[in-house]
């Protein structure tokens, strides 16, 4: 008798940072656990957060935004349950500041003073903005000293090429694309500004946190299996799956930086506390959420036990 | 079976203030009576017809009808001075409109409409739309539509004004036939004094604006009347009388600029 199957609705986006989920699903990591993953395609977590809080989505792979903090601050039943990407001190940069080769070569960017008056493009989404803000703080500058330009990602490359902006903040695969097109070079990886930053994670909503924790546990087992496959690196198989799910060329996927994910799913809570104090000073959040208010380790603990037994 | 208008007054609100169109209008139309309404241009004839038709609320006064119309049959049908032929319907649908409203089945109402269309001489144009007709042809559509409705009261606002003399005569004969066969009241606006005398049991002559009934003239000529009698002393007398009233009203209107 096959076990009763549980449906888990998970927000899907064809971004590189969804790679783990795509790999896990493609490799059937959930199948023998009785979990059926249903993808709900959306563009960003802005749309997904309320759905998660209302129990219309069960799992939201996401990145940190002030809205997430504010929602938990107000008692929404959502928690971070696993790592999905952080900024490693060494290795390739998943997010970076890029500038034209000439600007970097000129040496102007070697001192913070050189930033004054430059046009810097990014999105006021937290990570991009957090990196910039941290950069400026490190140099005792404020946002008034530069010109911040909000740009949709696809326009960044053209803007840099046309000289409409001086510096852009981008993530993969845009970094590789910009570099390969010759429009710009990496000037400063974001990890140098916000080292170790936990930019990406997996969230559960009330349906898995409260109603059906067991399903959450099982899902996590599948997820961590996916992480292990991901950590095998740029194997042909992995490249093909990710390229297939995101629609990117395989060469681009292969050339791009894959951010590291801890195979235990362990999450650096310290990083989020630092982020919160920054966001609070910026007036983006209404209060600080303590660790137990945003992080629920029970799921990875269970999954790690199961996976340890398997081996 | 007639109706009585009592102390009717109408004041239009316009951009340049109020305009008193009618004042103290009282008259009645008796059962099976043919009443003509003549008066200077702009004196309120069309306004009176709209009041009787219930399309306009009088500012003052009341209208009382002797009977409630039998089921289905409309109390009145109006031939509008501006024809009001629906541009989005072809001729036959325009003429059959009243029957459609009363729920007469399609084939039946088209058959009836066809009969009346033939009588106004438009059989070739049953399927035409109004913009393909001449002005007089549109007026005939509007006449046929009113006849088809077969009301108790026929309200006709210069119904034959856009027709040539001969077609007008044919239509007049048609009207007199319908009126004498079926008991109807007719309130008939015309600019043609001779026509009023030939058709009416009574003529109401109006003053200039604000319109009042200045005089009621009973026409006691035997029917059927003949246009060629028009030089009889009686007719000439009435004609000259109406003419004098009109002249006085129009001249004084023109003097004061309306």
């Amino acid at each position, binding site marked *: 008798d096959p076990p009763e199957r549980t449906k888990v609705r998970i927000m*899907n986006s*064809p*971004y590189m940072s969804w790679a783990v989920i795509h790999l896990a699903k493609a490799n059937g990591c959930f199948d023998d656990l009785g979990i059926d993953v249903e*993808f*709900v*395609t*959306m*563009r960003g977590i*802005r*749309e997904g957060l*309320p*759905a998660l809080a*209302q129990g*219309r*989505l069960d799992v939201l792979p996401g990145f940190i935004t002030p809205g997430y903090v504010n929602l938990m601050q107000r008692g929404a039943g959502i928690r971070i349950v696993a790592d999905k990407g952080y900024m490693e001190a060494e290795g390739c940069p998943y997010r970076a500041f890029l500038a034209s080769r000439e600007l970097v070569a000129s040496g102007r960017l070697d001192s913070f003073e050189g930033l004054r008056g430059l046009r810097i493009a990014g999105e006021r989404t937290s990570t991009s903005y957090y990196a910039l803000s941290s950069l400026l703080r490190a140099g005792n500058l404020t946002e008034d000293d530069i010109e911040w330009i909000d740009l949709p990602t*696809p326009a960044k*490359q*053209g803007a840099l*090429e046309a000289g409409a902006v001086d510096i852009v903040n981008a993530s993969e695969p845009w970094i590789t*694309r910009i570099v390969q*097109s010759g429009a710009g070079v990496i000037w400063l990886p974001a990890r140098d500004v916000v080292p170790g930053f936990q930019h990406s994670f997996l969230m559960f909503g009330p349906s898995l946190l409260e109603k059906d924790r067991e399903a959450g546990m099982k899902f996590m087992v599948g997820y961590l299996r996916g992480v292990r496959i991901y950590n095998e690196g740029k194997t042909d198989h992995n490249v093909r799956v990710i390229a297939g799910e*995101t*629609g*990117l*060329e395989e060469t681009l996927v292969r050339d791009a930086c894959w951010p590291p994910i801890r195979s235990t799913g362990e999450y650096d809570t310290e990083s989020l506390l630092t982020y919160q104090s920054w966001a609070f000073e910026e007036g983006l959040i209404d209060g600080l959420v303590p660790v137990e208010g945003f992080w629920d380790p029970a799921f990875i603990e269970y999954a790690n036990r199961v996976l340890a037994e398997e081996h | 079976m007639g109706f009585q208008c009592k102390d009717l007054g109408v004041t239009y609100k316009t951009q340049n203030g109020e305009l008193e169109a009618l004042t103290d209008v009282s008259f009645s139309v008796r059962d099976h009576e043919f009443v003509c309404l003549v008066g200077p241009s702009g004196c309120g004839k069309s306004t009176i017809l*709209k009041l009787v*038709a*219930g*399309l306009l609320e009088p500012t003052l006064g009341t209208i009382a009808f002797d009977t409630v119309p039998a089921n289905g049959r*409309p109390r*009145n*049908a*109006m031939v*509008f001075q*501006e*024809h*009001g*032929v*629906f*541009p*989005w*319907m072809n001729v036959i649908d325009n003429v059959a*409109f*009243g029957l*459609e*409203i*009363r729920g007469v089945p399609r084939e039946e109402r088209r058959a009836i409409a066809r009969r009346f269309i033939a009588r106004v001489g438009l059989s070739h144009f049953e399927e035409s*739309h*109004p*913009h393909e007709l001449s002005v007089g042809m*549109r007026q005939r559509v509007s006449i046929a539509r009113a006849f088809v*409705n077969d009301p108790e009261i026929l309200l006709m606002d210069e119904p034959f004004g856009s027709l040539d003399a001969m077609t007008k005569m044919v239509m007049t004969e048609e009207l007199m036939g319908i009126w004498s066969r079926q008991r109807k009241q007719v309130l008939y606006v015309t600019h043609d004094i001779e026509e009023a005398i030939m058709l009416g049991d009574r003529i109401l002559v109006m003053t200039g604006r604000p319109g009042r009934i200045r005089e009621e003239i009973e026409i006691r000529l035997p029917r059927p009347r003949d246009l060629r009698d028009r030089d009889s002393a009686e007719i000439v007398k009435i004609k000259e009388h109406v003419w004098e009233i009109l002249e006085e009203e129009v001249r004084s209107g023109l003097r004061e600029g309306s």
Partner: protein
Amino acid sequence: MNGRKLAGSMIPVIPPAILIVTLTLIETVTRMEILPSLFFPPPSAIVSTLYDMTTEGELLDHLSATVLRLLTGFLLGGIPGMILGMMMGWSTAIRRILDPFVAALHPVPKISSLPIIMIIFGIGFVSRTIVVAVASFFPMLINTMAGVRQIHPIYFDVARNSGASRMQILRRVVLPGSTPFILAGVRLGLNVSLSISLAVELLLADKGIGTLIWMAWQTMRIEELYAAIVTAALVGISIRLFVQVMLDRCVPWATKART
């Protein structure tokens, strides 16, 4: 045939001629790489991409998803809009009562209120359709209302004089009398519905021309991007042809002359 008529008979060939000249010009300019080829592929490349996408069947899938969304949304929004527009155009009382609400709701940004709609109606088909429906509701309402108000009062008088009920007046006077403006509303509404369908697909669908556009952006396949946009344009041309046919069939009287 005099000169004027001859010139008139040339008209149908002018738009294609303009199109061909423009495309040839762009083709030349892009081939000469005067514009950055990364963002400005030559039209021939776009056409061949379009051809490939069609033969692979993918395009038709996306197209039919979008058209379905568009039509469902339009019917759900446009017809209530038309009916309400007729009521509001016809009755001053209804207009005075409802117009403030219409005015307040119209500018509420459709796409940016999608999140709220998702909060209220969930993340499925319903929310997506509601957004598209709302978008076509307003052009239909406002145009129908204006259309009804321009009907000459004499036609209402004639209808009332024939004893027409409110329903009959609606069907036989209000509706046909405002058809030219309802059709202008249909054209606007369908186009807005299309735009919003695309935007919704961009945000959260997994199928449709909008998804295609977004995927093309995301993967920087510029030919596909243009091919998707050309497909949207073709839908727009179909909409216009449809409205044109309706105009010719339903209101020959209005485009020629009116009594």
